[in-house]
């Protein structure tokens, strides 16, 4: 049978109804100000780490919020915790605390979930 190659790649779309949002929900509990994020990218714009790497903190936390945790732990290592993002966020999100909490939730030894 002809192989059309449809099985080679996984679909890029994710299934939100199957996503495991427990870590994301815990993050919102720990950092309630994150509920106010409107995804404006102000944090990314000013980020010190983005000058030297392809790190995009807005993309990282928005991806975390949708329960898509793969590769995020590696990404979050690029952050230097300088806190500039926290200074510019128009919604007053405590980004530094958000990042520390994401790191903790993604630590393999974290047995919470």
């Amino acid at each position: 049978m002809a192989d059309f190659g449809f099985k080679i790649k996984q679909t890029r779309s994710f299934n939100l109804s199957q996503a495991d949002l427990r870590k994301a929900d815990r993050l919102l509990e720990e950092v309630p100000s994150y509920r106010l994020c409107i995804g404006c990218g102000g944090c990314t714009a000013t980020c010190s780490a983005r000058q030297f790497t392809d790190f995009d903190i807005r993309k990282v936390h928005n991806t975390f919020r949708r329960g898509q945790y793969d590769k995020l732990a590696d990404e979050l290592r690029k952050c230097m915790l300088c806190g500039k993002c926290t200074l510019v966020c128009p919604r007053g999100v405590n980004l530094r605390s958000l990042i520390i909490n994401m790191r903790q939730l993604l630590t393999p030894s974290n047995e919470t979930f």
Partner: protein
Amino acid sequence: MTIAIIGAGPAGIEAASVLAKQYQVILFEREERPLCNIRDKAFLFPDFSSADELADKLESKLSHENITLKTATPVVSMQRTGEQWTLTTADGTTATFDAVLLATGYKVFDAHQKEELGYGIYKGVITSLEMEKMIKENNIRNNMNEIPKQIVFLQCVGSRDEKSGNHYCSKVCCVTAVKQAIEIKKQHPETDVYIFYMDLRMWGQGFEEMYREAQEKYGVSFVRGRISEAASTFDNRVQIKAEDTLMGNPMTMNSDLLVLMVGMCASEGTATLSKCAGIDGLYRFAQSLSPHTEDNLTAQPNLFLAGSCKRPMCIEDTIQDARAAALEIM
């Protein structure tokens, strides 16, 4: 019945012209002439009609035998005695009235407060007020006095911003940026115009059509992302940093001008007098009794409100609100 109206902007004048059909009205204005905020503008959204023509039309309503206009006369305090109000002006004069209408309006947000955006530090960073003046004078220039190659707008400066302490949306700046972008393109089709937004709020009649026209006819570019830093380049232009959130990519860009769309805040008159009368509300604006049917009334007897002393409001709504306030007083 004697009536005082504080503020000779669109709200104060429209209310005065209605009330003058039956009553004597005294209109206090702190500036040398009425309607300064409208006269600062070139054209009005959504129909690009002339701001000066509207101002002239409104001003002509003042020539009525029952209206006395006192310019350069700021009211500095007000006291209630029973059902009446005594107003004190800057020169210490007092006068007592049966009803007072507060129409003290707004002022624009002071962009110096957003230091990271470089207003007052880099010459290429200006406010929407200064852009309006350039459009009006047909003199859109960068700080080297050349026609700008690029102009970047940033929405929500001093509005929707936890750091400025203003959570509210100023309502008019989205459509004003689109209006100014179109005006720039009319005067200089070769200038590239970018509008950086968090959300575009095209709520009024004709606004969405202006947005479409800006895209389709004038080629204005819209970037969904908040600029959070501006710096100067070696050639005196402005470098901005944002994320193009739709691409999911951080970006920088150089521009001749960065225009900050400054929001609407309570004017000094609004803040001082509403506090003095005990009707101060959120963000130093004046507080009406309820938003639906008692929006021109206050918790104080015979003290009424009209226009943007209550909240950000466009000119059309302000004029209608003033008529409603006049009916409440009658």
